[in-house]
């Protein structure tokens, strides 16, 4: 059953004209970020999007979240067109977006407040999710007192707390150290199995995408479209095995994705006219 369906999504941004930016639009001060994205995600599926920086991944997530409108095309959730944001979708933003005047716990409570849940119950739920991400002893800290990785974990707890059907996660583990990252990846897989949420996950790490996803969508350089959707042929149960990352299937998937992605990364750099190599951001398939 299709949970999320994107049909030919196009999105342009107005940009300030200083005359030096190359673009593909018809008008000279518009930037075509998404050039017709088609994507279907089944209920309970875990799909990752990988693509070069600036290709429109966050833009696409915003559209699915109902936080902005596409210029062309439609997004459907459970067959109904997306009209705006809603508590059926929980978003973990790339830049955390925590409320600085709220403690970690109060941040996690935020989404619960617009439902009519009594305060005690709200507290309890928020504490449960903070514990889940390993931050129970930090519940009274303000965001400025937390590290980048801790903030990301609060943001994840916040999106989970109101129990949305769909999780939209924009590089949620980007600021974490390798160990915490692996722990949370496993934790996310557990949550996914327990709750049957549909997850749309954006990452820069091919390794992470292969480890977590049922399918990985490769996005092209701007204007972003889905270049290819790759199935990851690894059973859910196998993912918790210690040597999974060195298994045949894992290595093969990783290599295939990297091959698909490589030329997009190069193209993205040409588009941005930026000679600085971003390759270090990507893990090679070796």
């Amino acid at each position, binding site marked *: 059953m299709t949970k999320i369906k994107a049909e030919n999504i196009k999105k342009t941004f107005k940009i300030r004209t200083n005359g030096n930016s190359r673009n593909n639009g018809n008008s000279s001060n518009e930037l075509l970020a998404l050039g017709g994205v088609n994507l279907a995600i089944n209920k309970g599926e875990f799909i990752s999007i990988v693509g070069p920086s600036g290709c429109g991944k966050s833009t696409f997530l*915003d559209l699915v*979240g*109902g*936080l902005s409108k596409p210029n062309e095309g439609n997004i459907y959730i459970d067959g109904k067109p997306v009209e*705006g*944001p*809603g*508590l059926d*979708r*929980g*978003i973990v*933003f790339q*830049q955390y*977006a*925590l*409320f*600085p*005047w*709220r403690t970690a716990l109060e941040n996690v409570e*935020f*989404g619960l*407040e*617009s*439902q009519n849940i009594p305060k005690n119950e709200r507290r309890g739920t928020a504490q449960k999710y903070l514990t889940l991400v390993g931050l129970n002893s930090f519940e009274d800290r*303000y*965001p*400025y007192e937390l590290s980048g990785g801790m903030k990301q974990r609060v943001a994840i707890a*916040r999106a989970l707390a*109101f129990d949305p059907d769909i999780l939209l996660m924009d590089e949620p583990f980007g600021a974490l150290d390798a160990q915490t990252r692996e722990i949370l990846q496993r934790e996310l897989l557990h949550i996914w199995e327990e709750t049957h949420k549909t997850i749309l996950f954006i990452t820069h790490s091919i390794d992470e995408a292969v480890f977590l996803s049922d399918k990985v969508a490769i996005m092209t350089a701007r204007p972003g479209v889905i270049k290819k959707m790759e199935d990851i042929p690894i059973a859910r149960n196998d993912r918790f095995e210690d040597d999974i990352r060195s298994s045949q299937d894992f290595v093969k998937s990783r290599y295939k994705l990297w091959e698909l992605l490589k030329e997009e990364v190069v193209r993205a750099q040409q588009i941005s006219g930026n000679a600085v190599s971003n390759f270090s951001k990507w893990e090679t398939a070796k």
Partner: protein
Amino acid sequence: MGSANIVKQLKLLPQKVFAIILFLLIWEIAPRTGLVDPVFLPPASVVFSALYDLVITGVLFKHTSISLQRAFGGFAIAALTAIPLGFIVGWFKTFEKYMDPLLQTMRQLPILALFPVFILFFGIGEVSKLAIIALACFWSIFLNTVSGVLNVDPLLIKSARSMGIPHTGMFRKVVLPAAAPAIFTGLRYAGTVSLIVLVAAEMIGANAGLGFFVINSEAKFAIPDMYAAIVALTILGVVINYLLIGVERSVSKWKEEIVRS
């Protein structure tokens, strides 16, 4: 944490009072040694004993309470008008664009130059004094509120929207707390301004209040009384500033660094 803080404050005490004590000493010695004319500047001890008399006789209290009523009245009127208006202007950005040039110009207007105009309209009574204090306080509160609202991080609005916050909730739960530190900075500044304008207004046209008492003592050549009232005004200013800083801190405790005055 609290007691550690107090210990720290106590350790800093000698450092903090050093300059003040030195200042009082010079003030005491200079007139006594004839360095300045003691008639124009009586020694600190004389001034403080005059202050003591004014406190004992209740004269100081009478003038202070009248002054405080005016300052607080003007301040309150300013806050009650400037904060809502600031929210409106800050929230509707196009409005702000049109208003900004006028606002920036008005802000430069030397408020006290308007006092005769106010007297013309409202007479010499309380109304014109309240009005001039309110107007002077208005600008810093208003402009800080506007910039506080304008600078709310759009990502936070987005984040709140994604969690199903309706428009009314957005105001209460996002815009207000995000703008609060800026508003309190405005209020604190307005507190200082209110005292300055109060004194000037009371000197120009009043028959009570600390400003009046200063100028009247000078006219009667009660010089120690004049200085005593000036000292009282200074203490008042310090107290008000500390109160407002306290409130500002309590609403900005989530900020990494609090701007200290």
